């Protein structure tokens, strides 16, 4: 079972310092990442996400717990085996971490040289990688002459050079502008699809998670507060952290205008439309059929995993408000009665 997972993290603990200065960075982390998915780990700074990602390739040694990659617990293997294992996990960094005194070519060739790839094969592979990341014309340029986005493309090419099973992105887009972020995320997604590589994305930006992740874990103060598919968490967030991250409509409910509207007669509901239901005219059907009036108090539409999720807070007035609410529920619309 565990062999089918790309990464399984079990009961992981990590602390820094000793005695009174001891800081528990990670507390009992349990995460299972499926092969081929893009898995997000989100949290504010200090939540422990960087420690967590560094525990996955053992750049940091966990205090206890295990990290199982392809069925093998890598916390229990020798240093030389670990080095081999690391070659199977590419890593992309926020600040790119390129060799500044080496050309783009040599930077990408670096991991290939570490595994003693023959020269002709390196030549071929690097050329291919440069094409994938769209930097064929920058082959002999030094990183200092590249823009942030281009540097990150070199970082990506380097990370996938040895055909790893897993790539980890540690705040890979946090130093980039929104436009560049978008293109880098697209590239990561394309690589995930084309190479069937498992991607672990660490970020503090919900936009990144929404754009590319299949599933997500939210970290807060070293603990997992919520895990699951991102639409599930968005639609039914269990914790305040999740609501905050998704900027869910609930966080806007204490808005003055909204509160005033609440005092007027009628029922107030929150309706979440996802997938198919987001494009069908359920609201107007409801109004016609049950002879009710509907006023939109708040609304928002998010796109996730190529799926639209709309949230509306409605005030319904009229004859058969109960019937109207039931009608929506029957059509797979998530309804929460607020008043």
């Amino acid at each position, binding site marked *: 079972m565990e062999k089918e997972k790309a990464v399984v993290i079990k009961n992981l603990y990590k602390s820094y310092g000793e005695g009174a200065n001891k800081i528990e960075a990670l507390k009992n982390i349990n995460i299972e990442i499926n092969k081929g998915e893009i898995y997000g780990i989100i949290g504010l700074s200090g939540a422990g996400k960087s420690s967590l990602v560094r525990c996955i390739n053992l750049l940091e040694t966990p205090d206890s717990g295990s990290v199982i990659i392809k069925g093998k617990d890598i916390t229990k293997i020798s240093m030389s085996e670990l080095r081999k294992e690391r070659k199977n996990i590419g*890593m992309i960094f926020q600040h790119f971490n390129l060799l500044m005194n080496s050309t783009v070519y040599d930077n990408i060739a670096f991991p290939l040289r570490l595994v003693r790839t023959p020269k002709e094969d390196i030549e071929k592979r690097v050329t291919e990688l440069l094409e994938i990341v769209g930097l064929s014309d920058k082959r002999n340029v030094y990183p200092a002459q590249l823009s942030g986005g281009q540097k990150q493309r070199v970082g990506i090419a380097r990370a996938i050079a040895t055909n790893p099973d897993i790539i980890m992105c540690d705040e890979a887009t946090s130093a980039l502008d929104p436009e560049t972020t978008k293109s880098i995320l697209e590239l990561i997604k394309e690589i995930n699809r084309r190479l069937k590589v498992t991607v672990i994305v660490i970020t503090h930006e919900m936009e990144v998670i929404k754009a590319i992740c299949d599933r997500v874990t939210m970290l807060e103060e070293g603990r997992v507060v919520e895990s699951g598919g991102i639409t599930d968490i968005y639609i039914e967030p269990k914790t305040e952290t999740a609501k905050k991250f998704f900027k869910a409509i609930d966080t806007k409910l204490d808005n003055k205008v909204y509160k005033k509207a609440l005092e007027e007669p009628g029922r107030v509901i929150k309706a979440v439309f996802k997938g198919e239901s987001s494009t069908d005219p359920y609201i107007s059907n409801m109004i016609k059929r049950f002879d009710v009036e509907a006023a939109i108090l708040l609304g928002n539409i998010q796109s996730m995993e190529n799926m639209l999720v709309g949230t509306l807070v409605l005030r319904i007035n009229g004859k058969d408000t109960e019937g109207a609410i039931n009608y929506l529920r029957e059509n797979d619309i998530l309804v929460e009665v607020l008043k």
Partner: protein
Amino acid sequence: MKEFINESLKNPEYWREIYRIIAPGLINTLYMVFFSSLISVIVGSVVGILLYITKKDNLLPNPFINSVMGTIVNIGRSVPFVILMIAVFPLARFIVGTSIGSTASIVPLTVAAIPFVARMTETSLNELDKGVIEASVSMGANEAEIITKVMLPEAAPSIVSGITITIINIIGYSAMAGTIGGGGLGDVSVRYGYQRSRTDILIYSVIIMIIMVQIIQCIGNFISKRLDKR
């Protein structure tokens, strides 16, 4: 006096004499500087690398080795060269069989320069971006690969600047070694310039040393710049 100087400057015999005195001195200086630079750069760089990687949170943390080496380097650096020179006479005698002459001078020059190079190298490595090292660890590089393929190439421009400064220092020290029987231009300056009041020879020696320093600084700057792609 002026006429006398003018006369002698036109006299080929005068220049032959100067050449006869200065040339061996210059050759000895070059010989001392070359070998002590070579040895101290090799040994000092190794010590510098060890100082860096044995630091806390570095590649091979080892507080014991780090503090022992750090202390030795500090002691080496705090002893004035004149005293160090006399102190290592026995060592020079042991290694090269004599404590006078240019070959013997290589020993104190090297001993003095090693800790200097070590600190210089360590400082250069300290400037490295830790992220690049972390990236190479994450790619499965071993310690030797990280040192030779990441640390040294990345710190090369700064290390070359350090080596340039070291060589220039050694030139200065070599002159000092010359005053107590070490040979070279320092020896020439003292024996002719000071003891025989041949101010002209003193001046020529100094000019030659200034030119040497200039040339080395230029070469160092050139190489350092060529290596730096940032």
